[in-house]
């Protein structure tokens, strides 16, 4: 069960420091800060959960910042977490970074202000909600959720405890600037529709059993997902969505539909400015053997998925009409999406990729997966977060989690 006996709390640490202050003591400049580095009290104390692949990149982005003090890493692979600890300790020239196998131990530390999460997707919601409950700000890699039912719980936890929670797609702002500028400048008039090309869907996985490598906590890797034997291709963190990676299999991912979809759908909703909305329906098309979708928003805007004869983020405006320009929003602070998150941790503003907007994006691919699975169109009630009057579709809202994990 949860080990509550690991590290001193911040209060305990400070109490100890005060007691020691009676004796002569030299306070290092690194604690007071200098021109290049804020004082320790001004730094955001961080830990990382899931630190291979994408998590390694996030760790590097936060570790390189002078206004962050990185103190803990967590991964269910011993080699990965020890390498990450070595990297952090090397940065600070000490051996202070703690390495955990169980994220609950890291989240139980009250000296940590914020965490970043880059586990496989089936873990995101459980860890994020637990982090909010434990008073942590959160930077969560995309795709932020695996099921439609998870998203609202993540948003609710963030709001309940007033945490800064950022989604993890940097591409939403950075990759589609031409399309975004075209739409926000008003030059193509009122925007009517946009297309997203992305795929494939994730698949069932019945790969054969292989020996579990030393140092791999396989039960913890599976966590809330259905039990399955270890196989390297099942859990590999490479970026393929066509087999040989967890991103390919539906117990852990929505496949390319959600993995790259979080970027592309995020870019599309940003470009046509429906970031704060969810669609009211998704229309399933079976067009001469080709399957594609159209999402309709309450304001009439359409987002297509894999529409034939168009390209990714192909946008349709209103020829002959113009519209007053709007200022394109951007990150706050310095250092891209990671800097935006840290800035907001300090100011308590909402980050550019606030969890509410990230989840509004995730609704698109996750609804789409249900439409493709049922091979029909679906209505969506954003207020109730369900397919209204559609018992068959509502079965797909969530999945039972493997014991003992709860959300």
């Amino acid at each position: 069960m949860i080990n509550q006996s690991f590290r001193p709390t911040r209060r305990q640490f400070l109490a100890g420091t005060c007691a020691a202050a009676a004796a002569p003591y030299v306070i290092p400049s690194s604690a007071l800060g200098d021109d290049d580095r804020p004082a320790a009290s001004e730094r955001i104390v961080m830990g990382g959960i899931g630190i291979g692949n994408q998590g390694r990149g996030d760790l590097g982005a936060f570790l390189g910042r002078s206004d962050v003090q990185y103190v803990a890493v967590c991964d269910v692979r011993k080699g990965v977490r020890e390498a990450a600890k070595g990297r952090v300790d090397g940065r600070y020239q000490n051996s202070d970074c703690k390495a955990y196998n169980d994220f609950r131990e890291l989240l139980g530390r009250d000296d940590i202000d914020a965490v970043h999460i880059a586990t496989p997707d089936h873990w995101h919601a459980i860890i994020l909600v637990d982090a909010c409950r434990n008073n942590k700000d959160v930077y969560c890699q995309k795709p932020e959720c695996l099921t439609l039912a998870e998203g609202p719980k993540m948003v609710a936890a963030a709001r309940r405890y007033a945490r800064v929670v950022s989604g993890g797609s940097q591409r939403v702002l950075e990759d589609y600037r031409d399309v975004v500028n075209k739409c926000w400048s008003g030059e193509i008039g009122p925007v009517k529709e946009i297309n997203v090309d992305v795929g494939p869907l994730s698949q069932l996985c019945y790969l054969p059993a292989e020996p579990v490598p030393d140092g791999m906590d396989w039960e913890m890797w599976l966590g809330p997902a259905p039990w399955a034997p270890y196989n390297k291709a099942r859990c590999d963190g490479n970026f393929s969505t066509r087999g040989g990676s967890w991103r390919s299999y539906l117990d852990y991912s929505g496949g390319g539909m959600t993995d790259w979809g979080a970027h592309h759908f995020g870019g599309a909703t940003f470009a046509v400015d429906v970031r704060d909305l969810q669609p009211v329906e998704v229309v399933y098309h079976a067009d001469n053997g080709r399957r594609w979708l159209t999402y309709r928003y309450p304001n009439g805007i359409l987002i297509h998925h894999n529409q034939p004869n168009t390209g990714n983020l192909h946008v349709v405006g209103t020829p002959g009409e113009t519209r007053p320009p709007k200022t394109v929003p951007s990150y706050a602070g310095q250092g891209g999406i990671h800097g935006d998150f840290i800035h907001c941790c300090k100011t308590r503003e909402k980050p550019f990729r606030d969890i509410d907007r990230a989840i509004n994006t995730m609704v698109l691919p996750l609804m789409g997966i249900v439409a493709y699975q049922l091979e029909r169109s679906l209505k969506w009630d954003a207020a109730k977060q369900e397919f209204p009057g559609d018992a068959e579709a509502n079965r797909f809202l969530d999945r039972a989690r493997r014991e003992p994990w709860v959300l």
Partner: protein
Amino acid sequence: MKLHEVTRLAAATGPAVLAGSAVVAAEPPKVDPAELDKAFETLKTFDWGSDPKTLSAIEQAVVATQGDPAGSTALERRLVAALGSDISRAAKDYVCRMLRTMGTADSVPVLAAMLPNRDLSHMARYALERIPATEAGTALREALAKTDGALKVGLIQSLGARGDATATPALTGLLDDSDAATVIAAATALGAIGTLQAAKALTGAVAKAPGAAKSAVIDACFRCAERLLADGKRGDAVAVYKSFTGEDQPKHVRLAATRGLLRQ
């Protein structure tokens, strides 16, 4: 006229036409009975390492029998029979995934029998949790008394996911359990159920909750309060929030309670 042309036309004329056009134009899925028989035969020897594509006719049949009660019942009977037979864990995993999407009360007995089995309990819940029939909830509640440890935690989680208010007395009793994981699960389930009865049980359990479960119990109280507010029961929600404004509460809990009071 191709469908995307219909869609473009519909987009200009209104949402009702858009949806209607697409539904009419999309071709209903079809399944070859011989391929379906072959897939069920394959299921008998299916195991880890097998290619799931060899079973795809079953998935196609699940989709094809939407809105076809006779076809759906016949398919469900075959799946239930397979699940009750001596097939591998991997094959049972596959069948439970199918029953999650189309199972009815007819599937409940075979799934309920799997609930006390350590290897099969989760996939039984994988189906039962999403089957709307009341029999599914009854099976989960009845299994509570036959299980302990992690399996019981799983059952509790599924009852919460179903919002099964009839489970409230049983879940309330589990708030006193000596196992912190059981307390966390019971609290989370009661928070999801979100009734006044659940809120009272939860607020009464905060003080005695083990340390590892404390934040989950408090969080469940807040979830109940949010639900009570949404249901217009402001006085009841205020009572929950006020119970967390004391100086004895952690600062972030006091602040969350204060925000709740300001929101009502």
